[in-house]
């Protein structure tokens, strides 16, 4: 019940923790978004058919909100619907910088390893 099962399809699997980074990034560039808006944004920026199971966004949103990196508030959409908009906080912006840095280092390391090893 509590374990997250990996999706089987050919969807790009997200590394543990990267979703948080992506969400933060999206909120930093786009300003406040609701969950669906975030999902749409992710689909839009990925050239690969990156179809996210939108449900998986929620644990990330809750996690980020609990850390105080984002803040949610109920607002009206342009079609006058209620939706919970998430905005990045100051702490979130700082964290984004930190996390992005770490990510780049990690990617660099993985790349180096991949290049060093013959296929």
């Amino acid at each position, binding site marked *: *019940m*509590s374990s*997250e099962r990996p999706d089987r399809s050919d969807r790009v699997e997200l590394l543990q923790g990267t979703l948080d980074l992506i969400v933060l990034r999206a909120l930093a560039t786009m300003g406040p978004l*609701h*969950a*669906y*808006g975030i999902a*749409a944004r992710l689909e839009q920026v990925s050239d690969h058919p990156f*179809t996210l*199971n*939108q*449900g*998986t966004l*929620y*644990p*990330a949103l*809750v*996690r980020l909100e*609990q*850390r*105080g990196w984002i803040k949610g508030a109920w607002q009206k*959409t342009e*079609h006058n*619907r*209620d*939706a*919970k908009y998430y905005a990045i906080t100051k702490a979130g912006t700082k964290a984004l910088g930190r996390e992005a840095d770490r990510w780049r280092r990690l990617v660099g390391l993985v790349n180096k390893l991949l290049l060093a090893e013959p296929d």
Partner: protein
Amino acid sequence: MRRVLLRLMNVMGPARAEREAEREIEAHLALIKEDFQARGMTEAEAQRRARLSLGGLQQVKERHGDARTIVWLDDARRDAGYGIRVLRRNPIFALTATASLAIGIGATATIFGAANALLLRTAPGVSEPDRLVEITETNGSFGIHPMSYPNLLDVRDRATTLEGVFGYDLNLRPMSLRVQGDAGAEAIFGDVVTMNYFTVLGVRAAIGRVFGAEDSERLDASPIVVLSDRFWERRFAKNSSVVGQTLRLNDHAFTIVGVAASDFHGTTVGSPDVWVPAGETPFVDRGYDAREFGWGLAGARLKPGVSVGHAAAEMNALARALARDYPAENRGLTLGVSRSSPIPAGLRLLVAGFLTFLMMLVSVVLAIACANVAGVLLARAAARRREMAIRLAIGAGRGRLVRQLLVETMVLFAVACAAGLWLAHGMTALLLSTLPAFPIPVDVSLPLDGRVTAFTIGVSLVTSLLSGLAPALHASKANVVDALKDGVQGAAERLRARHGFVVGQVAFSVLLVVTAGLLVRALGRASSVDQGFDPHGVEAVTLDLTLGGYTRESGPLFVRDLVGRVRELPGVQAAAAAFAAPNDRLTGFSLSIPGRTSPRGESSVQAVGNIVTPGFFATTRIEIVAGRDFNSDDGSARPVVIVGESAARQFWPGARVQDVLGREIVWNPFIDRSGQTAPPHAAFAGTTLTVVGVARDLRSSDAGDVRPFVYIPFQQQYSPDVTLLARTVHGERVANDLRTLIARMNPNLPIVSDRTLEEQTGPVVVQLRVAAAIAASVGAVGLLLAGIGIYGVTAYAVARRAREIGIRVAVGARRADVMALVIGEAMSLVAVGAGAGLLLASGVGHLLGRFLYGVPPLDPLTFASSALLFIAVGLIACYVPVRRAMRISAMEALRCD
């Protein structure tokens, strides 16, 4: 931290967070739908796709939830909620289980509360109790006994690990309080303490001041006194003008310097009215300079950071030094250090032993209650096997299921724990009410403090795990395939476990009932035992003649005068005075029999003795079997003695009682090392006494054995401690007449205590009474629970075997056969349980041994009636299931699936 808090908040108030999440997901769905519709899909299609892309609504919510709260805590909350619902659905089970557990838990909490108040905590009202210790002196074979004043001063001066050493008197001292305008004197109880008593304990004054450095320890300093808060309230209505006034104690003027803080009642259970500094009590004839004389108890405060062990090591060395410096008085001296508690070290073992016995009794009833609950849970586990199997099949972990079942059990125990704590208040009051009136003021409040609460919660937790684990493991062991098929598998094993629980319940209940029976029988024997005198209708008034200013010369005259006047009171049939009442603790004498040495070569023999006026034997109705009572002519000119029958037999083996008359006994000098109430002997030592009478032996209701007795006439041996005995014609009370009479004769002489001989009971009888009351109550609860257990398992057996019984009926079994079948099964459990219980009880009987007053440990009456009782309970418990079984028809058997 913030996250943990948020999560915790979500565990506490999940409903709000869940609603919020639901609303958000709804909004999300709506947004996707809107988008898809905008791209030209139909509403239904858009709805379906929306749900698809969100990935299963419930799953989303659960994931949402998982991230939101601490999962296991949330699970526990859900399980607890489920547990409460299950309990609500079975109110009868919930009620009996909670009630029985609450009684068991409450009883253990009560006994632990008593142990905590008496043994584990320091007396209330002192500061930094963790550093307070007692210093106990032992000397050779004497055991723990009071320390001499010079030794106390040496310990105080030489100790480096102790911050302060104080001394106090264990026995509260009766003092005569004379208030202007009152008819007579009132006896109040004071404790004699060293001047640093309050400062070392860290007790402050409510008003005025306590003893302090400014007070001189010189014997001739002007006498001062500190009042207890209770005494201040009782006698002075908390009037603060008392500070500086004089209090006339034992006809001496004491200046009241202050009142001690209201929460301080002394360092022991004895709760004094006043505190008087040692050294300045002119009426206290105890030797402050005698190193061989036991003066009082010593307490001390450890220096910060010093452990008890460290201090004990120093005391050990100090004791050796004291023994070296004063070899005559301190030979074999040892000093021990122990944490301070209201029961002083010398008595702690005794009290602890008794409380342990009570704890065992109440633990047994708790065990029975647990077995009862475990049995019912096991039955429920069987019913829920299918549910468990399904949950296992769809992937729930076994650990998760066990956890759920345990949490359900814990809900039950949590309710029982709360109820038990509540019950413990009432039970504590009940326990205190079984105690007799104390001759001195005592502080026996048994507060249910944090430690008792923690203990109770701990006990509930442990017992809930113990009684919940077996059923939980059993239920979660479901073999998925078998359980889903029909759920029969495991029935035999489960039944065995249930039978085991019932057998255990019966065995433990039998144990309790037999113990209660033995104790009640012993109590009956102890109170009806022929003590050798007739206690009915005898008023006993205790006086301390020194309080009235009497001396060795004036005392005997006053006593003769008093006894004469009491005899003339209306309603009084006979009167006499004695050192002690016949059922009091008597003093020990050391005697020599001329021309005879004991088998061990000692020339002296020990006897217990009493000092009595003429008329004592008539007043107490102790039969004189040979010779005569003392008369007014007996005195120092020709010293005489009356001996008990067994003393006569022991001193002059083979002699007939008539032959004993005229024989002689030599009084030995005797030093009472313990400093306890012993009459002064010195002037009397070495006297030869002639036997003028032989009296019937006294049997102490406490010890049950017979000791050699000797009686000395009061004219011959003065004792300032006097008990006035008055036998009335019709058993009426004359205490008030005696009080008026004494007040008229000497307004300064207070009555220390008054009672009838009948109501006076020794400490062992009191213990017996408390133990019997507790054993009987828990025995009754145990009996009831065992009955419920037998009923439960029999009813279950009948339900399970309905089909079999139906078939038996179909092939011709008679009702009597069915009855025999059901009763046979139930009673075999009772038989096994009762057998085991009787076996256990025989062990307890031997353990109680000498407290049983000659009731044999395997008392046939008690054992047989207990066995019969359980057969009766078993049959009653079977009644309803048997009726049900006998009504099963062949048709029913076929119908039942």
